[in-house]
């Protein structure tokens, strides 16, 4: 048994097991933590497949942002997860059907590569085995697709400005951190060294 194959089975076994636990865990916080474990193992699988960029992005975006957001929602909102889960077995058949449909779709997509292997090379940017995919992305992002990349950046800028302009309110009488004031503080202003004689106290 080769080493990549060994790791493939390790990652996929843990991924499937923790995916089951995401649904089965009683405590919603545990469920989110299991979800993070699924993401990590999926990232490991991507790494094995040679998609190192996707793998790291999965960790940064899904673990770093999305999962933490889930955790926030679970901990801050008062949602009764026990009642949400009550009808789970009832809906299981529908879940199985959706899973089957996904499986068939996956087989169809994978099948197209088996039936006509030349499909992959007919795309606009054919896969070049000599260049790893982070570098391949870097080569086109700021050259061939610079307009679209910058345009997408502008869309994100609008989203950011929009979120701030619609939600930020400057309330008076709110205590805020003032970094300048904090940095300018000196030890001499705040601390005093007092000699205390033993047995006397202050």
């Amino acid at each position, binding site marked *: 048994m080769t080493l990549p194959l060994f790791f493939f089975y390790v990652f996929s076994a843990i991924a499937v097991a923790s995916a089951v636990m995401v649904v089965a865990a009683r405590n919603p916080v545990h469920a989110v933590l299991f979800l993070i474990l699924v993401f990590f193992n999926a990232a490991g699988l991507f790494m094995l497949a040679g998609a190192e960029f996707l793998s790291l992005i999965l960790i940064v975006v899904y673990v770093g942002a999305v999962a933490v957001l889930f955790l926030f929602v679970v901990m801050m909102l008062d949602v009764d997860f026990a009642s949400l889960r009550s009808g789970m077995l009832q809906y299981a058949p529908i879940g199985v059907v959706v899973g089957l449909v996904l499986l068939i779709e996956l087989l169809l997509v994978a099948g197209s590569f088996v039936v006509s292997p030349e499909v992959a090379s007919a795309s606009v940017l054919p896969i070049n085995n000599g260049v790893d995919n982070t570098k391949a992305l870097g080569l086109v992002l700021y050259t061939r697709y610079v307009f679209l990349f910058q345009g997408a950046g502008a869309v994100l800028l*609008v989203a950011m400005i*929009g979120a701030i*302009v619609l939600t930020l309110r400057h309330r008076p009488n709110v205590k805020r951190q003032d970094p300048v004031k904090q940095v300018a503080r000196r030890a001499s202003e705040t601390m005093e060294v007092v000699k205390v004689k033993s047995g006397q106290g202050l």
Partner: protein
Amino acid sequence: MNSDVTDFASLAPAYPEMLLAVGAIVLLLVGVAINKERSLLVSYGAVLLLLIVAAIVLFAPAEGVLFNGVFIADSFARFMKVIVLAGAAFSLMLALPHAEENGTHKFEYSILALLATLGMMAMVSANDLMSLYIGLELQSLAAYVLAAIKRDDPRATEAGLKYFVLGALSSGMLLYGASLIYGFTGHTNLQEIVIAIAAEGRSIGLIFGVVFLLAGVAFKISAVPFHMWTPDVYEGASTPVTAFFATAPKVAAMALMVRLVMDTFQGITHDWQQIVIFLSIASMVLAAFAAIGQKSIKRLIAYSSIGHVGFALVGLASGTQVGVEGVAIYMAIYVAMNIGLFACILSLRSDAGYVETIQDFAGAAQTRPFVAAIMAIIMFSLIGMPPLAGFFAKWHAFLAAIDAQLYLLAVIGVLASAVSAFYYLRIVKVMYFDEPVHRFEAVPAELTIIMAVSGLFVVTYYFTVGGPLASFAHVAAGSLF
């Protein structure tokens, strides 16, 4: 890897967009640095920036295809960009007086409008399904925020939310159409799609894609049956924002529609022609009858703009160069009339606030004769009375339809135009023959200037701007054929 951007000079066709993007970011930084609720520097800076960019587009033209075919700058794009930029600049000027009350006093208002305009320029210059979507989304996302910018007003928030949800739906349809077109032609580049259609002919999948794509764009120009959002959003958003929505984005989306059907899908003219004719007839007829019952002036303008999109589509339905010329001229005149109309509405402000219903205009001719006169002129022009500008707009559009032997379409257009005269003339009647109800406040100087310019444009159109505009439109339309 194979990029056509070799040095800075090779970017010349995209200079206006680059300047607008950099300018918007600089003004954003200025606004944040000044750190005040209202910053006149940013407001005036944004108007000035738009006018400078318009001047560059107009007087320093550079044409070509850039960024590996996703961006095109041709005469048609230039013509439409000038209208978009002028419309955006004037509607930002409309937001200057009484900004506090309209919720447009935040400096982010100008920044978002600038970025929306950047998106519109990208739409006008789109030469690829991807850049088309990026431009459309940049414009729409900024517009959703603008609709809700008066965030403490429940109506504005409702308008923003409604616009967002329906806009997301239309983006979904557009993307689905784009994916089908990509799937059945194998290209996202519009020029490559033309070649693919010519080589392989029409397939049923492609037709489906075109229908979905056009439905997405029709939502943006608010053509019936994708118009439902327009009256609600126009009514809910504050009036200067409505003025912005009714002018620049409509022109950009119409330019996109023209480029798609005339250029990209020229090989399947008979298929898209049916769609455009349907959109056109439905828009004209529904708008003419639905506007009659409206009491709110902004809802009335919303239906009026739906109707005008229908009239412009009459020109497009012909599928000829004369038709494109007609659409180009129509959009230019439409923007000029709407800017003047909104300037009139914003300058009629009593102690009870801005005019909201049509009855609020009662007796404006006695208290504010200048505003009432301009308003009446624009109303006659919107109906299409000769010798005002609106007549020539419709003249060009209907002429193209008759040239293409679409007699029924032209007849329905003229009849709808006659019906629409009722609700336009009702406003004139209320202004001139009813007793005054409100005491209107003094008119801000900016609005007086805009009203005078718009009135002059509408009245003297035939003798002054009409000739140069028509020849510019002729060149613009020629670049698509």
